[in-house]
Protein backbone atom coordinates (compact mmCIF):
# COMPACT_ATOMS: atom_id res chain seq x y z
CA UNK A 1 0.00 0.00 0.00
CA UNK A 2 1.27 3.45 -0.88
CA UNK A 3 1.28 6.60 1.18
CA UNK A 4 1.53 10.31 0.40
CA UNK A 5 4.18 12.20 2.38
CA UNK A 6 2.94 15.29 4.25
CA UNK A 7 -0.65 14.73 3.16
CA UNK A 8 -2.06 16.63 6.17
CA UNK A 9 0.03 19.74 5.37
CA UNK A 10 -0.94 19.60 1.68
CA UNK A 11 -4.62 19.19 2.53
CA UNK A 12 -4.37 22.12 4.94
CA UNK A 13 -2.99 24.28 2.13
CA UNK A 14 -5.85 23.09 -0.11
CA UNK A 15 -8.36 24.20 2.54
CA UNK A 16 -6.65 27.59 3.01
CA UNK A 17 -6.62 28.25 -0.74
CA UNK A 18 -10.25 27.18 -1.14
CA UNK A 19 -11.53 29.31 1.72
CA UNK A 20 -9.58 32.45 0.80
CA UNK A 21 -9.29 32.49 -3.02
CA UNK A 22 -12.07 32.13 -5.57
CA UNK A 23 -11.53 30.34 -8.89
CA UNK A 24 -10.59 32.73 -11.75
CA UNK A 25 -13.62 31.85 -13.88
CA UNK A 26 -16.01 32.96 -11.12
CA UNK A 27 -14.06 36.19 -10.54
CA UNK A 28 -14.20 37.11 -14.25
CA UNK A 29 -17.90 36.21 -14.49
CA UNK A 30 -18.61 38.55 -11.55
CA UNK A 31 -16.62 41.33 -13.25
CA UNK A 32 -18.51 40.96 -16.54
CA UNK A 33 -21.76 40.88 -14.58
CA UNK A 34 -20.84 44.18 -12.92
CA UNK A 35 -20.29 45.82 -16.32
CA UNK A 36 -23.83 44.88 -17.37
CA UNK A 37 -25.46 46.55 -14.37
CA UNK A 38 -26.76 50.12 -14.45
CA UNK A 39 -24.26 52.66 -13.15
CA UNK A 40 -25.13 53.72 -9.62
CA UNK A 41 -27.53 50.81 -9.06
CA UNK A 42 -27.59 48.66 -5.91
CA UNK A 43 -26.70 45.70 -8.15
CA UNK A 44 -23.54 47.41 -9.36
CA UNK A 45 -22.56 48.54 -5.85
CA UNK A 46 -23.07 44.98 -4.58
CA UNK A 47 -20.82 43.49 -7.23
CA UNK A 48 -18.14 46.11 -6.48
CA UNK A 49 -18.33 45.17 -2.79
CA UNK A 50 -18.06 41.49 -3.70
CA UNK A 51 -14.97 42.12 -5.86
CA UNK A 52 -13.31 44.18 -3.12
CA UNK A 53 -14.04 41.45 -0.61
CA UNK A 54 -12.55 38.77 -2.90
CA UNK A 55 -9.33 40.78 -3.33
CA UNK A 56 -9.09 41.53 0.38
CA UNK A 57 -9.66 37.92 1.47
CA UNK A 58 -6.99 36.74 -0.94
CA UNK A 59 -4.44 39.30 0.29
CA UNK A 60 -5.18 38.77 3.98
CA UNK A 61 -5.59 35.00 3.68
CA UNK A 62 -8.92 35.14 5.54
CA UNK A 63 -12.20 33.47 4.58
CA UNK A 64 -14.06 35.02 1.64
CA UNK A 65 -17.30 34.17 3.45
CA UNK A 66 -17.71 33.50 7.16
CA UNK A 67 -19.88 30.51 6.34
CA UNK A 68 -17.10 28.18 5.32
CA UNK A 69 -19.78 25.59 4.79
CA UNK A 70 -19.62 21.83 4.60
CA UNK A 71 -16.18 20.69 3.44
CA UNK A 72 -16.72 18.18 0.62
CA UNK A 73 -13.69 16.27 -0.63
CA UNK A 74 -13.97 14.46 -3.97
CA UNK A 75 -11.00 12.12 -4.34
CA UNK A 76 -9.87 10.18 -7.41
CA UNK A 77 -7.13 7.70 -6.69
CA UNK A 78 -5.31 4.63 -8.10
CA UNK A 79 -6.32 1.21 -6.78
CA UNK A 80 -3.35 0.81 -4.44
CA UNK A 81 -3.81 3.88 -2.23
CA UNK A 82 -5.67 3.18 1.01
CA UNK A 83 -8.66 5.47 1.44
CA UNK A 84 -8.65 5.23 5.23
CA UNK A 85 -5.26 6.94 5.38
CA UNK A 86 -6.58 9.77 3.21
CA UNK A 87 -9.79 10.10 5.23
CA UNK A 88 -7.79 10.45 8.45
CA UNK A 89 -5.45 13.01 6.89
CA UNK A 90 -8.28 15.18 5.50
CA UNK A 91 -10.09 15.06 8.83
CA UNK A 92 -6.94 16.20 10.68
CA UNK A 93 -6.39 18.96 8.12
CA UNK A 94 -9.95 20.18 8.68
CA UNK A 95 -9.35 20.31 12.44
CA UNK A 96 -6.13 22.30 12.03
CA UNK A 97 -7.77 24.62 9.48
CA UNK A 98 -10.48 25.35 12.06
CA UNK A 99 -7.87 26.28 14.68
CA UNK A 100 -6.21 28.56 12.13
CA UNK A 101 -9.54 30.25 11.29
CA UNK A 102 -9.55 29.17 7.64
CA UNK A 103 -12.76 27.40 8.60
CA UNK A 104 -15.51 28.35 11.05
CA UNK A 105 -16.51 25.58 13.48
CA UNK A 106 -19.52 24.41 11.52
CA UNK A 107 -20.38 20.85 12.56
CA UNK A 108 -23.50 20.79 14.74
CA UNK A 109 -24.97 17.60 16.24
CA UNK A 110 -28.44 17.46 14.71
CA UNK A 111 -30.02 15.92 17.81
CA UNK A 112 -28.31 17.71 20.72
CA UNK A 113 -27.56 20.96 18.87
CA UNK A 114 -23.98 20.92 20.15
CA UNK A 115 -21.25 22.32 17.90
CA UNK A 116 -18.27 19.94 17.94
CA UNK A 117 -15.97 22.96 17.66
CA UNK A 118 -13.55 21.40 15.18
CA UNK A 119 -15.62 20.70 12.07
CA UNK A 120 -15.74 16.98 12.61
CA UNK A 121 -18.72 14.83 13.49
CA UNK A 122 -21.10 12.27 12.03
CA UNK A 123 -20.40 12.16 8.28
CA UNK A 124 -18.58 15.47 8.62
CA UNK A 125 -16.45 16.41 6.70
CA UNK A 126 -17.92 14.69 3.64
CA UNK A 127 -15.31 12.64 1.77
CA UNK A 128 -16.04 10.71 -1.43
CA UNK A 129 -13.65 8.30 -3.12
CA UNK A 130 -13.54 7.19 -6.72
CA UNK A 131 -10.93 4.76 -7.94
CA UNK A 132 -9.58 5.58 -11.39
CA UNK A 133 -7.28 3.84 -13.86
CA UNK A 134 -4.35 6.27 -13.63
CA UNK A 135 -1.26 5.11 -11.75
CA UNK A 136 0.46 7.38 -9.29
CA UNK A 137 -1.90 10.29 -9.81
CA UNK A 138 -4.35 11.48 -7.18
CA UNK A 139 -6.81 14.31 -7.58
CA UNK A 140 -8.49 15.90 -4.56
CA UNK A 141 -11.21 18.40 -5.27
CA UNK A 142 -12.47 20.40 -2.32
CA UNK A 143 -15.73 22.30 -2.27
CA UNK A 144 -16.77 24.50 0.66
CA UNK A 145 -20.54 24.67 0.39
CA UNK A 146 -22.20 27.38 2.43
CA UNK A 147 -25.48 26.69 4.22
CA UNK A 148 -27.37 29.71 2.90
CA UNK A 149 -26.96 28.56 -0.67
CA UNK A 150 -27.44 24.88 0.19
CA UNK A 151 -30.84 25.77 1.66
CA UNK A 152 -31.86 27.01 -1.79
CA UNK A 153 -31.38 23.63 -3.41
CA UNK A 154 -34.59 21.87 -4.44
CA UNK A 155 -35.78 18.59 -5.85
CA UNK A 156 -38.93 18.47 -7.96
CA UNK A 157 -40.84 15.37 -8.88
CA UNK A 158 -42.45 15.60 -12.33
CA UNK A 159 -45.29 15.98 -13.10
CA UNK A 160 -45.45 18.98 -10.79
CA UNK A 161 -49.02 20.22 -10.59
CA UNK A 162 -48.63 23.74 -9.18
CA UNK A 163 -46.58 24.80 -12.23
CA UNK A 164 -48.28 22.53 -14.74
CA UNK A 165 -44.82 21.05 -15.31
CA UNK A 166 -44.99 17.77 -17.22
CA UNK A 167 -42.55 14.96 -17.80
CA UNK A 168 -40.70 16.63 -20.64
CA UNK A 169 -38.00 19.23 -21.22
CA UNK A 170 -40.51 22.04 -20.90
CA UNK A 171 -41.42 20.73 -17.44
CA UNK A 172 -37.73 20.64 -16.60
CA UNK A 173 -37.31 24.30 -17.64
CA UNK A 174 -40.31 25.34 -15.58
CA UNK A 175 -39.10 23.79 -12.34
CA UNK A 176 -35.50 24.97 -12.62
CA UNK A 177 -36.52 28.57 -13.20
CA UNK A 178 -39.20 28.31 -10.51
CA UNK A 179 -36.48 27.58 -7.99
CA UNK A 180 -34.49 30.59 -9.21
CA UNK A 181 -37.55 32.73 -8.44
CA UNK A 182 -38.07 31.03 -5.07
CA UNK A 183 -34.44 31.54 -4.07
CA UNK A 184 -34.49 35.31 -4.78
CA UNK A 185 -31.49 36.79 -2.95
CA UNK A 186 -31.44 34.32 -0.10
CA UNK A 187 -28.73 32.04 -1.43
CA UNK A 188 -26.31 34.89 -2.22
CA UNK A 189 -26.63 35.24 -5.95
CA UNK A 190 -25.45 35.66 -8.60
CA UNK A 191 -25.41 31.88 -8.57
CA UNK A 192 -24.18 28.90 -10.50
CA UNK A 193 -26.86 26.26 -10.84
CA UNK A 194 -25.95 22.58 -10.82
CA UNK A 195 -28.76 20.41 -12.13
CA UNK A 196 -29.40 16.71 -12.59
CA UNK A 197 -32.32 15.55 -14.70
CA UNK A 198 -33.34 12.09 -13.52
CA UNK A 199 -31.62 9.64 -11.20
CA UNK A 200 -32.98 8.67 -7.81
CA UNK A 201 -33.44 11.10 -4.91
CA UNK A 202 -29.90 10.63 -3.62
CA UNK A 203 -27.96 10.36 -6.89
CA UNK A 204 -29.87 13.33 -8.33
CA UNK A 205 -28.62 15.72 -5.67
CA UNK A 206 -25.11 14.20 -5.64
CA UNK A 207 -24.73 14.60 -9.41
CA UNK A 208 -26.25 18.10 -9.37
CA UNK A 209 -23.76 19.16 -6.72
CA UNK A 210 -20.81 17.96 -8.80
CA UNK A 211 -22.17 19.93 -11.76
CA UNK A 212 -22.17 23.12 -9.71
CA UNK A 213 -18.37 23.15 -9.67
CA UNK A 214 -17.79 22.52 -13.37
CA UNK A 215 -15.65 25.34 -14.83
CA UNK A 216 -17.94 28.02 -16.27
CA UNK A 217 -16.29 27.98 -19.71
CA UNK A 218 -16.69 24.21 -19.94
CA UNK A 219 -19.12 23.20 -22.74
CA UNK A 220 -21.48 20.29 -22.12
CA UNK A 221 -20.61 17.39 -24.48
CA UNK A 222 -24.33 16.69 -24.89
CA UNK A 223 -25.61 19.32 -27.36
CA UNK A 224 -29.17 19.23 -25.99
CA UNK A 225 -27.93 19.88 -22.45
CA UNK A 226 -25.44 22.49 -23.71
CA UNK A 227 -28.35 24.43 -25.26
CA UNK A 228 -30.46 24.01 -22.15
CA UNK A 229 -27.66 25.34 -19.95
CA UNK A 230 -27.41 28.47 -22.10
CA UNK A 231 -31.17 28.95 -22.20
CA UNK A 232 -31.62 28.61 -18.42
CA UNK A 233 -28.84 31.12 -17.75
CA UNK A 234 -30.34 33.63 -20.21
CA UNK A 235 -33.88 33.21 -18.92
CA UNK A 236 -32.69 33.25 -15.31
CA UNK A 237 -30.98 36.59 -15.91
CA UNK A 238 -34.12 37.90 -17.62
CA UNK A 239 -36.04 37.40 -14.34
CA UNK A 240 -34.41 40.56 -12.98
CA UNK A 241 -33.63 39.26 -9.50
CA UNK A 242 -30.05 40.52 -9.60
CA UNK A 243 -27.15 40.26 -7.17
CA UNK A 244 -28.41 39.58 -3.61
CA UNK A 245 -31.97 39.90 -4.93
CA UNK A 246 -31.68 43.71 -5.23
CA UNK A 247 -32.97 43.63 -8.80
CA UNK A 248 -30.62 43.71 -11.79
CA UNK A 249 -29.22 41.86 -14.76
CA UNK A 250 -26.95 39.34 -13.07
CA UNK A 251 -28.92 36.56 -11.40
CA UNK A 252 -27.03 33.54 -12.72
CA UNK A 253 -23.34 33.24 -13.59
CA UNK A 254 -23.92 29.91 -15.27
CA UNK A 255 -25.92 26.68 -15.37
CA UNK A 256 -24.45 23.19 -15.53
CA UNK A 257 -26.67 20.23 -16.23
CA UNK A 258 -26.24 16.48 -16.35
CA UNK A 259 -28.69 13.63 -16.73
CA UNK A 260 -29.07 10.20 -15.20
CA UNK A 261 -31.31 7.32 -16.20
CA UNK A 262 -34.42 7.02 -14.06
CA UNK A 263 -36.94 4.29 -13.38
CA UNK A 264 -40.15 4.70 -15.40
CA UNK A 265 -42.14 5.74 -12.32
CA UNK A 266 -39.85 8.56 -11.14
CA UNK A 267 -38.78 11.79 -12.82
CA UNK A 268 -36.77 13.98 -10.47
CA UNK A 269 -35.12 17.27 -11.27
CA UNK A 270 -32.51 18.11 -8.64
CA UNK A 271 -31.15 21.62 -8.36
CA UNK A 272 -28.13 22.81 -6.39
CA UNK A 273 -27.77 26.55 -5.90
CA UNK A 274 -24.13 27.63 -5.63
CA UNK A 275 -23.58 31.12 -4.22
CA UNK A 276 -21.22 33.62 -5.88
CA UNK A 277 -18.64 32.55 -3.28
CA UNK A 278 -18.31 29.28 -5.20
CA UNK A 279 -15.29 28.03 -3.32
CA UNK A 280 -13.55 25.08 -4.86
CA UNK A 281 -9.96 24.11 -5.59
CA UNK A 282 -8.18 21.02 -6.84
CA UNK A 283 -4.98 19.47 -5.52
CA UNK A 284 -3.11 16.97 -7.68
CA UNK A 285 -0.32 14.57 -6.73
CA UNK A 286 1.65 13.40 -9.75
CA UNK A 287 5.21 12.11 -10.13
CA UNK A 288 5.91 12.93 -6.51
CA UNK A 289 4.85 16.58 -6.97
CA UNK A 290 1.86 18.41 -5.56
CA UNK A 291 0.05 21.18 -7.43
CA UNK A 292 -3.03 23.31 -6.72
CA UNK A 293 -5.44 24.68 -9.29
Amino acid at each position, binding site marked *: MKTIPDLVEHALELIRLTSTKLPDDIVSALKSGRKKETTGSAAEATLVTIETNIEM*ASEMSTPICQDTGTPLFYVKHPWDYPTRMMREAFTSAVQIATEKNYLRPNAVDSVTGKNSGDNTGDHFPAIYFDQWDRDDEIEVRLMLKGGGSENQGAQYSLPYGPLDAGRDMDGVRKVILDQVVNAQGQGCGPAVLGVCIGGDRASGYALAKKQSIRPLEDVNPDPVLADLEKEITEKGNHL*GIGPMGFGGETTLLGTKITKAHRVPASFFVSIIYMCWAARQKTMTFKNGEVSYD
Partner: protein
Amino acid sequence: MTELRTPISEEAIRALKVGDIVSINGTAVTARDAAHKYMVESWIESEPSGEDKELRTTLKPILSGGIIYHCGPVVNQDESGKWHFIAAGPTTSSREEPYEHKVIKAFGVRAVIGKGGMGDKTLAACGEFGAVYLHAVGGAATLIAQNVEEVEAVYKTEFGLPEAFWQIRVKDFQCVVTMDSHGGSLHKDVLSQSRGKYNEMFGG
Protein backbone atom coordinates in the same frame (compact mmCIF):
# COMPACT_ATOMS: atom_id res chain seq x y z
CA MET B 1 -25.74 58.34 2.71
CA THR B 2 -27.39 58.57 6.12
CA GLU B 3 -25.42 57.96 9.27
CA LEU B 4 -27.06 55.90 11.98
CA ARG B 5 -25.54 56.03 15.44
CA THR B 6 -26.72 53.86 18.33
CA PRO B 7 -28.93 54.32 20.29
CA ILE B 8 -31.08 55.11 17.23
CA SER B 9 -34.14 57.31 17.63
CA GLU B 10 -37.54 56.46 16.18
CA GLU B 11 -37.41 59.71 14.23
CA ALA B 12 -34.21 58.65 12.46
CA ILE B 13 -35.82 55.34 11.49
CA ARG B 14 -39.03 56.94 10.23
CA ALA B 15 -36.97 59.15 7.92
CA LEU B 16 -35.54 56.11 6.10
CA LYS B 17 -36.99 54.68 2.89
CA VAL B 18 -36.28 51.54 0.87
CA GLY B 19 -33.18 52.11 -1.27
CA ASP B 20 -31.43 54.48 1.17
CA ILE B 21 -27.83 53.67 1.98
CA VAL B 22 -26.87 53.95 5.64
CA SER B 23 -23.57 53.92 7.47
CA ILE B 24 -23.74 52.47 10.94
CA ASN B 25 -21.64 53.48 13.92
CA GLY B 26 -22.03 52.16 17.42
CA THR B 27 -22.93 48.89 19.08
CA ALA B 28 -24.62 45.89 17.45
CA VAL B 29 -25.37 42.43 18.77
CA THR B 30 -25.16 39.35 16.59
CA ALA B 31 -27.97 36.85 16.95
CA ARG B 32 -28.97 34.01 14.70
CA ASP B 33 -31.02 30.84 14.99
CA ALA B 34 -30.21 29.58 18.50
CA ALA B 35 -30.10 33.12 19.93
CA HIS B 36 -33.49 34.08 18.47
CA LYS B 37 -35.15 30.91 19.74
CA TYR B 38 -33.59 31.58 23.15
CA MET B 39 -34.63 35.26 23.32
CA VAL B 40 -38.23 34.42 22.51
CA GLU B 41 -38.55 31.28 24.64
CA SER B 42 -36.48 32.33 27.66
CA TRP B 43 -36.84 36.12 27.77
CA ILE B 44 -40.12 37.03 26.13
CA GLU B 45 -42.55 34.15 26.48
CA SER B 46 -41.44 33.18 29.97
CA GLU B 47 -40.11 35.11 32.95
CA PRO B 48 -36.39 34.36 33.18
CA SER B 49 -34.49 33.72 36.37
CA GLY B 50 -30.84 33.30 37.33
CA GLU B 51 -28.32 33.62 34.48
CA ASP B 52 -31.02 34.09 31.86
CA LYS B 53 -32.45 37.04 33.75
CA GLU B 54 -29.01 38.51 34.25
CA LEU B 55 -28.21 38.32 30.56
CA ARG B 56 -31.52 39.87 29.61
CA THR B 57 -30.82 42.73 32.00
CA THR B 58 -27.36 43.19 30.46
CA LEU B 59 -28.50 43.18 26.84
CA LYS B 60 -31.83 45.00 27.21
CA PRO B 61 -30.35 48.54 27.18
CA ILE B 62 -28.18 47.62 24.19
CA LEU B 63 -31.05 46.14 22.20
CA SER B 64 -33.27 49.13 23.03
CA GLY B 65 -32.69 51.56 20.17
CA GLY B 66 -30.10 49.07 19.04
CA ILE B 67 -29.15 46.77 16.22
CA ILE B 68 -29.38 43.01 15.76
CA TYR B 69 -27.02 41.57 13.19
CA HIS B 70 -27.79 38.15 11.68
CA CYS B 71 -24.26 36.87 11.58
CA GLY B 72 -22.21 33.87 12.64
CA PRO B 73 -18.65 35.18 12.48
CA VAL B 74 -15.26 33.54 12.13
CA VAL B 75 -13.45 34.73 15.26
CA ASN B 76 -10.00 34.58 16.73
CA GLN B 77 -8.99 34.88 20.38
CA ASP B 78 -5.59 36.45 20.97
CA GLU B 79 -3.15 35.56 23.76
CA SER B 80 -4.66 38.14 26.11
CA GLY B 81 -8.08 36.51 25.70
CA LYS B 82 -9.47 39.31 23.51
CA TRP B 83 -11.72 38.24 20.62
CA HIS B 84 -11.42 39.57 17.07
CA PHE B 85 -13.71 39.23 14.04
CA ILE B 86 -11.95 37.66 11.06
CA ALA B 87 -14.89 37.16 8.71
CA ALA B 88 -18.38 38.40 9.40
CA GLY B 89 -20.90 38.61 6.58
CA PRO B 90 -24.67 38.35 7.11
CA THR B 91 -26.57 35.06 7.26
CA THR B 92 -29.99 34.40 5.68
CA SER B 93 -32.56 36.33 7.70
CA SER B 94 -35.74 34.51 6.74
CA ARG B 95 -35.00 31.82 9.32
CA GLU B 96 -35.63 34.38 12.07
CA GLU B 97 -39.00 35.42 10.65
CA PRO B 98 -41.02 33.52 13.32
CA TYR B 99 -39.11 35.34 16.09
CA GLU B 100 -37.99 38.78 14.94
CA HIS B 101 -41.28 40.67 15.31
CA LYS B 102 -41.49 39.53 18.95
CA VAL B 103 -37.91 40.67 19.60
CA ILE B 104 -38.50 44.06 17.95
CA LYS B 105 -41.63 44.54 20.05
CA ALA B 106 -40.13 43.37 23.36
CA PHE B 107 -36.85 45.32 23.20
CA GLY B 108 -37.44 48.23 20.86
CA VAL B 109 -34.79 47.09 18.39
CA ARG B 110 -34.46 49.76 15.69
CA ALA B 111 -32.52 47.95 12.99
CA VAL B 112 -32.04 44.37 11.90
CA ILE B 113 -29.12 43.65 9.58
CA GLY B 114 -29.05 40.51 7.49
CA LYS B 115 -29.46 39.23 3.97
CA GLY B 116 -32.29 38.02 1.78
CA GLY B 117 -34.98 40.06 3.52
CA MET B 118 -37.76 39.04 5.88
CA GLY B 119 -41.49 38.48 5.70
CA ASP B 120 -44.77 40.14 6.53
CA LYS B 121 -44.59 39.77 10.32
CA THR B 122 -41.27 41.58 10.50
CA LEU B 123 -42.41 44.20 8.00
CA ALA B 124 -45.51 44.87 10.12
CA ALA B 125 -43.37 45.14 13.28
CA CYS B 126 -41.08 47.64 11.49
CA GLY B 127 -44.14 49.78 10.80
CA GLU B 128 -45.72 49.44 14.22
CA PHE B 129 -42.67 49.91 16.41
CA GLY B 130 -40.38 51.97 14.15
CA ALA B 131 -37.66 49.67 12.85
CA VAL B 132 -35.90 48.94 9.55
CA TYR B 133 -34.34 45.95 7.88
CA LEU B 134 -30.88 46.65 6.54
CA HIS B 135 -29.25 44.49 3.89
CA ALA B 136 -25.53 43.80 3.98
CA VAL B 137 -23.76 42.04 1.12
CA GLY B 138 -23.90 38.30 1.70
CA GLY B 139 -20.51 36.64 1.56
CA ALA B 140 -18.56 39.91 1.87
CA ALA B 141 -17.15 38.58 5.09
CA THR B 142 -13.54 39.74 5.17
CA LEU B 143 -14.57 43.24 4.08
CA ILE B 144 -17.30 43.59 6.71
CA ALA B 145 -14.99 42.28 9.46
CA GLN B 146 -12.87 45.42 8.85
CA ASN B 147 -15.83 47.49 10.06
CA VAL B 148 -15.84 45.72 13.41
CA GLU B 149 -13.63 47.85 15.61
CA GLU B 150 -13.96 45.90 18.79
CA VAL B 151 -15.62 42.86 20.27
CA GLU B 152 -17.04 44.29 23.50
CA ALA B 153 -18.45 41.06 24.91
CA VAL B 154 -19.65 37.60 24.02
CA TYR B 155 -22.50 35.66 25.63
CA LYS B 156 -23.84 32.13 25.29
CA THR B 157 -20.77 30.57 23.67
CA GLU B 158 -22.35 27.23 24.61
CA PHE B 159 -24.59 27.74 21.55
CA GLY B 160 -21.38 27.34 19.50
CA LEU B 161 -19.23 30.26 18.37
CA PRO B 162 -21.30 31.09 15.24
CA GLU B 163 -24.52 31.11 17.27
CA ALA B 164 -23.35 33.14 20.28
CA PHE B 165 -24.38 36.75 21.03
CA TRP B 166 -21.39 38.88 19.97
CA GLN B 167 -21.62 42.44 21.19
CA ILE B 168 -19.53 44.45 18.75
CA ARG B 169 -18.64 48.07 18.06
CA VAL B 170 -18.89 48.83 14.36
CA LYS B 171 -17.64 51.78 12.35
CA ASP B 172 -18.92 52.91 8.95
CA PHE B 173 -20.74 49.63 8.34
CA GLN B 174 -22.64 50.25 5.10
CA CYS B 175 -26.00 48.67 4.40
CA VAL B 176 -29.00 49.28 2.15
CA VAL B 177 -32.49 49.79 3.59
CA THR B 178 -34.57 47.07 1.95
CA MET B 179 -37.56 47.11 4.36
CA ASP B 180 -38.68 50.38 5.89
CA SER B 181 -41.16 51.49 8.56
CA HIS B 182 -43.70 52.63 5.95
CA GLY B 183 -44.55 49.18 4.59
CA GLY B 184 -41.96 49.30 1.81
CA SER B 185 -40.05 46.12 0.98
CA LEU B 186 -37.65 45.78 -1.91
CA HIS B 187 -37.88 42.00 -1.44
CA LYS B 188 -41.62 41.96 -2.01
CA ASP B 189 -41.23 44.14 -5.11
CA VAL B 190 -38.46 42.06 -6.69
CA LEU B 191 -40.31 38.83 -5.89
CA SER B 192 -43.51 40.00 -7.53
CA GLN B 193 -41.68 41.43 -10.58
CA SER B 194 -39.63 38.27 -11.10
CA ARG B 195 -42.65 36.00 -10.63
CA GLY B 196 -44.45 38.16 -13.21
CA LYS B 197 -41.62 37.67 -15.70
CA TYR B 198 -41.63 33.93 -15.00
CA ASN B 199 -45.35 33.77 -15.73
CA GLU B 200 -44.84 35.70 -18.99
CA MET B 201 -42.13 33.22 -20.04
CA PHE B 202 -44.40 30.26 -19.60
CA GLY B 203 -47.67 31.91 -20.56
CA GLY B 204 -49.05 31.56 -17.01
